[in-house]
């Protein structure tokens, strides 16, 4: 894409919610053996994931985060002009989950609500859309981003189930004359097969059937069905190396910042190995590139705001910060945002039973 700078929108608050229940390396050892589980944990950096109980939806997590955030901001529910729900984990194939959230949150019926089906890059796209809505006249926009990523993986697939966790987040955007957000975004749909759930709903290219539901041993020796997540880790890593360093350089250039000016680089929490390599490649000190997925796993579009609230809550609440946020993955899709923000409202993490 092109990059662009959106004037007039500011982030006023961020909140996160995760399921109370966890799965650990010890739980994985029961499926894959202790040695294999530990090897996977050392490679991915994930030791504990938050995994929602049966019946818990992503919207429940986003609701909990948003409810907490709105109370912290003391915003009237009727003052919200738009709500975006960024996720692949919808309550129903139809209607849009954002509509249900409008009702649950008690927002005005004058509020525009819509879903955005993106994952790893979704938070950045959500910020871009939200900021654009404000530039177009909205005063207050809620961005809810999350995933029940743990449910997408076959419990017998060592390439995915140890990696993914569940989370929901809420970000409040408001019009602010002096604020600007800088964006760089892009897409390569030619890589869509590298991160995919190949079959599922009645309207999908490969509809649900008994055959698509059957879990069998695949060419990579992992057991999954066509309705489970498939990830070609090597292709996704190669994509990350091709796209993310130039993405970060481009957004820094757009913001007219040097990398030394930036307080924190919050990158999509894909995998510890990838994040450490990216930091080294970009010449970024690791203390400026938070890695929190040890505690949560890869939570898709929630991973950036979850990382922000996990390790920078006090900093976010107390001073102005220059941040670079970058999401990359499923689609294939990528985006980065350079934003100066703070102090903002950042409530404590919500844990949903």
């Amino acid at each position, binding site marked *: 894409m092109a990059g662009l700078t959106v004037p007039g929108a500011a982030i006023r608050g961020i909140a996160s919610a995760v399921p109370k229940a966890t799965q650990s390396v010890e739980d994985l050892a029961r499926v894959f053996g202790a040695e294999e589980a530990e090897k996977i944990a050392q490679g991915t950096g994930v030791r504990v994931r938050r995994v929602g109980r049966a019946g818990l939806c992503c919207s429940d997590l986003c609701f909990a985060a948003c409810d907490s955030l709105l109370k912290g901001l003391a915003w009237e529910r009727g003052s919200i002009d738009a709500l975006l729900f960024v996720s692949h984990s919808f309550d129903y194939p139809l209607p849009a989950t954002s509509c249900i959230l409008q009702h649950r949150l008690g927002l005005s019926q004058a509020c525009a609500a819509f879903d955005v089906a993106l994952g790893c890059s979704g938070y950045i796209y959500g910020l871009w859309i939200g900021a654009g809505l404000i530039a177009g006249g909205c005063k207050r926009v809620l961005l809810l981003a999350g995933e029940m990523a743990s449910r997408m993986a076959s419990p017998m697939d060592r390439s995915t189930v140890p990696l993914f966790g569940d989370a929901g987040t809420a970000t409040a955007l408001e019009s602010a004359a002096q604020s600007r957000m800088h964006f760089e975004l892009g897409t390569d749909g030619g890589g869509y097969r590298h991160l995919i759930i190949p079959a599922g709903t009645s309207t999908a290219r490969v509809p649900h059937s008994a055959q698509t539901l059957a879990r069998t041993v695949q060419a990579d020796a992992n057991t999954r069905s066509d309705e489970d997540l498939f990830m070609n880790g*090597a292709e996704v890593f190669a994509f990350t*190396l091709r796209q993310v360093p130039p993405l970060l350089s481009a957004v820094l250039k757009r913001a007219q910042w040097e990398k030394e000016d930036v307080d924190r680089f919050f990158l999509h929490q894909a995998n510890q*190995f990838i994040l450490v390599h990216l930091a080294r490649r970009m010449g970024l000190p690791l203390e400026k590139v938070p890695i929190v997925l040890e505690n949560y796993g890869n939570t898709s579009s929630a991973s950036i705001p979850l990382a922000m609230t996990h390790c920078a809550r006090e900093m976010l609440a107390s001073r102005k910060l220059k941040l670079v946020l970058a999401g990359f993955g499923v689609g294939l899709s990528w985006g980065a945002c350079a934003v100066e923000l703070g102090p903002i409202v950042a409530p404590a993490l919500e844990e949903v039973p």
Partner: protein
Amino acid sequence: MTKREFYSELESLIGLEPGSIQGAEPLSGIAGWDSMEVLRFIALADEKLGEVASPEAIIACQTVADLANMFPAKIT
């Protein structure tokens, strides 16, 4: 980078004895050459050679020498 230097980097990567790789070794016969090592190899090529290795090309390699031959301009 010379081929010997490249093989030394691979030995470190996979945890093999220095000097144990000569080039003709089939990848399928190397203990520890698995999906995680492929990721580490991609990272190695990026860091040491400035090249993003194609996973498809890596899968097509039969021997260690084939890995080196992926980068003719960088490994001599």
